[in-house]
């Protein structure tokens, strides 16, 4: 249309998918139409108010109290206009819901409060990577309450409803990084439920995915654990610096005794952590609500293991590296083997 309006503008973010141009065409058409109509109404109103303002000696003039012809005119014309708007909106929408048969599929799971994007090879990421210029379908579901995937640059949005699968498709047209928001209110950290969309050249995308799929085994367990902590939603509720949160902080958690809600006490060690990740409701620490979703089936055993290693690294009672170990038992006060940050 107008080149000035073809991309990021005062009104719209940049156009980065196949749906954007058509949506924006209708938007700008409506913008011109409605701006025109607004100024028509406002202009007529202001002109009348000025011209026929009550003043000394002014008497209202007699005009017909109705005119069927006039009223039918301003009934029929708007009717035609809105049917046309409906048609264009519907056409654009049909393209959004009619996907090609050959398509790349990514599973999306929303949870309080983060995203899990699962690729066909089983790799899960907290951000969305998609190949440019290839049709992609997102299959949407939710772990808990309703969420909604919204990518403004793609002009797409669809709810993630627990208990059903919704689908959306698009073809990203331009390499770059774009924001993705949760658009359906889902509780405390709804507004932090944001992710990034990376649109990459198809060959770059493939290389990234192959490497990414194998990442847990390519780095030290503590680092892998930290990455999972931030990527898979733990960081939303569990701080690592002692700050209070929705769940207990991870700092100095490992090795400590914790009072539970039912009055008993538990020592935080490998099996308790594993249990808490897979069945969060089973042993709740006193003073906290059980809002954590289960990670059963969402984390592999190796991933649970590295998270436990990461927890250990945040604790005063962490296992020490070999060069700091004293030679004999009885001297293990733990001084000097504090590890604040493994990196």
């Amino acid at each position, binding site marked *: 249309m107008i080149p000035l309006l073809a991309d990021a503008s005062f009104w719209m973010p940049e156009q980065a998918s196949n749906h954007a141009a058509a949506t924006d065409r209708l938007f700008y058409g409506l913008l011109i139409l409605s701006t025109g109509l607004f100024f028509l109404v406002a202009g007529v109103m202001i002109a009348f108010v000025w011209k026929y303002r009550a003043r000394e000696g002014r008497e209202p003039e007699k005009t017909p109290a109705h005119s069927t012809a006039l009223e039918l005119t301003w009934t029929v014309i708007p009717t035609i206009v*809105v049917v046309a*708007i409906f048609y264009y909106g519907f056409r654009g929408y049909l393209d959004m819901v009619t996907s090609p048969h050959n398509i790349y599929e990514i599973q999306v799971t929303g949870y309080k409060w983060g995203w899990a994007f699962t690729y066909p090879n089983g790799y899960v990421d907290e951000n969305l990577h998609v190949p440019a210029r290839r049709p992609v379908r997102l299959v949407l579901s939710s772990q808990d309450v309703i969420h909604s995937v*919204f990518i403004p640059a793609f002009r797409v949005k669809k709810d993630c409803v627990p208990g059903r699968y919704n689908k959306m498709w698009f073809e990203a047209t331009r390499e770059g990084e774009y924001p993705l*928001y949760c658009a359906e209110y889902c509780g405390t950290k709804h507004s932090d439920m944001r992710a990034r969309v990376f649109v990459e050249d198809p060959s770059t995308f493939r290389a990234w995915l192959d490497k990414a799929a194998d990442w847990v085994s390519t780095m030290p367990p503590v680092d892998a654990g930290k990455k999972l902590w931030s990527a898979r939603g733990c960081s939303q509720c569990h701080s690592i610096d002692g700050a209070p949160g929705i769940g207990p902080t991870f700092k100095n958690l490992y090795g400590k005794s914790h009072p539970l809600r039912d009055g008993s006490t538990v020592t935080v060690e490998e099996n308790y952590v594993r249990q808490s990740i897979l069945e969060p409701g089973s042993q709740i620490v006193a003073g906290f609500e059980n809002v954590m979703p289960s990670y059963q089936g969402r984390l592999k055993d190796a991933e649970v293991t590295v998270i436990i290693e990461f927890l250990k690294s945040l604790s005063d009672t962490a296992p020490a590296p070999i060069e700091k170990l004293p030679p004999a038992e009885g001297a293990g006060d733990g001084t000097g083997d504090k590890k604040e940050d493994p990196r």
Partner: protein
Amino acid sequence: MTTSTDTSARARPGEKASPPSYLEHSKGIRSWLFTIDHKRIGVMYLWAVLGAFLLGGLFALLLRTELMNPGPTLIADETKAWDFYNHMFTLHGAVMVFLFVIPAIPAILGNFILPIMLGAKDVAFPRLNLLSFYLYSLGGLFFVWVLLSGVIEAGLDIDLPGGGGLDTGWTFYTPYSTSSSSGVTAATLGAFILGFSSILTGLNFISSIHMLRPEGMTWFRMPLMLWALYGTSIIQILATPVLAITLLLLVAERTLKVGIFDPALGGDPVLYQHFFWFYSHPAVYIMILPGMGILSEVISIHSRKHIFGYRFIAYSSIAIALLGFLVWGHHMFTSGQSALANAIFSLLTFSVSIPSAIKVFNWLATLYKGAIALSTPMLYALGFILLFTIGGLTGLFLGALSVDIHFHDTYFIVAHFHYVMMGSTLFAFLSGMYHWWPKIFGKMTSPRLGWIGAVLVFVGFNLTFFVQFVAGSQGMPRRYANYPEQFTIYHQISTIGAFVLGLGLFVVLADWLWSLRWGKKAPANPWGGNSLEWHCASPPPLENFAIAPTDAGDPYRFDDWVRDEETGGYVKRQESPA
């Protein structure tokens, strides 16, 4: 023109024997609390609803302040700041919708004006009317409890049974609302009770309009305000029970764990949305229709012109009431409902725009060649036309499927519905309040304060909400406590606007309170209207008319009324037989 001898000779008939007004008729708190006089009930509603509006407005200012900057603003701790914001926007929405916008015009102005417009002593069922007021108060108390318990929980750091505050959004979407630990049960029971208040008021209005019209007042000689209230009442009676059922089901699910909406219990969350919007979309027309009725009165009377296209306006009120039932699905365009359902709801949604457009064009045609007075009611009516036009036109963007997908649940929708609910309904409410204030309290408001208030409210409103269209189209999602840096400027303009708007509304309040104390005594007919309420004294006596009046003729024919310089109002033309 008028001389003193003239006026003494023209002592209004019946002035000597005029009975005390409804305000002075009896004294004491009991004479108010147990009154069945529709006027006193209307005035009690006025103070109660204004109290709710003050509360809702306070929440609005708090949430706008929290949004002044990205990240936490009022509370340092992030989690607490987000929770605070979530509670604020929920309570703002719930209080404004259930306790202010829905009851404002029907319960205050409708109650006061409808029986007088009909020349009746009262509504058809006066006791039911008082019950309706007490149900409103009781429902309101539930919300006060939700709020107080939230404050107590936060302040004392304790857990109250039933939970404190409310953080689900006024829409109570499942399964979030089934799992939230906040006061969902108390709030939904409150809304349930408020629903009955609304139903009883609607019932009363429909019965009154059917049964109490004076001799000679045919349907097409009723003031258009009555048509609008009639349309509103249809919706109140037919749609509100659905909300009541839905909220009861929600409470049953929360407390008895019956699976209806929660998929974990075998329910369907989208079913809740269908039930909820089947009421709540028509409720939007409960909010706007009576406002449109006020506009038809004010535009015509204050430009001293016969309303243009009476029948089209009357029919369009009923058309809006009925079509409003068929469009609820447009709240679910992104929920995953079928493409066919989306297409049908999109088309039906556009159908509602036609009767709305007709009204605007007819109001404009009414102004043509009139003698337009820029009185305070007229300022708000003209403001309504501008803001409703923006609200209506932006509705076209949202009805169009492909564009709505992008705008759904963003600030674009927030701006749109504030233009309709606040820019339009609030402006109509203020217009109507200023229009009938002299009738209700027998005092004139100050034109100067009226102007200042109207300008501040108009500027503040647009400052607050216009930028939200841009924020939304740029992708800013709604109900966000925290937001990316790029949206900061929109939020800051909006927050400043909110305070200007708040200031303007306090000027309005000051004007009203000023007039009660120092306002000039109002004449019976300050604007020269011809509907029956302008035929009785200001303020009216207990039973409105000494003798039940017959129809006063065309309510929009003002020829028989001439300006009387002495009282500042209008009196019947001398040459016409009294």
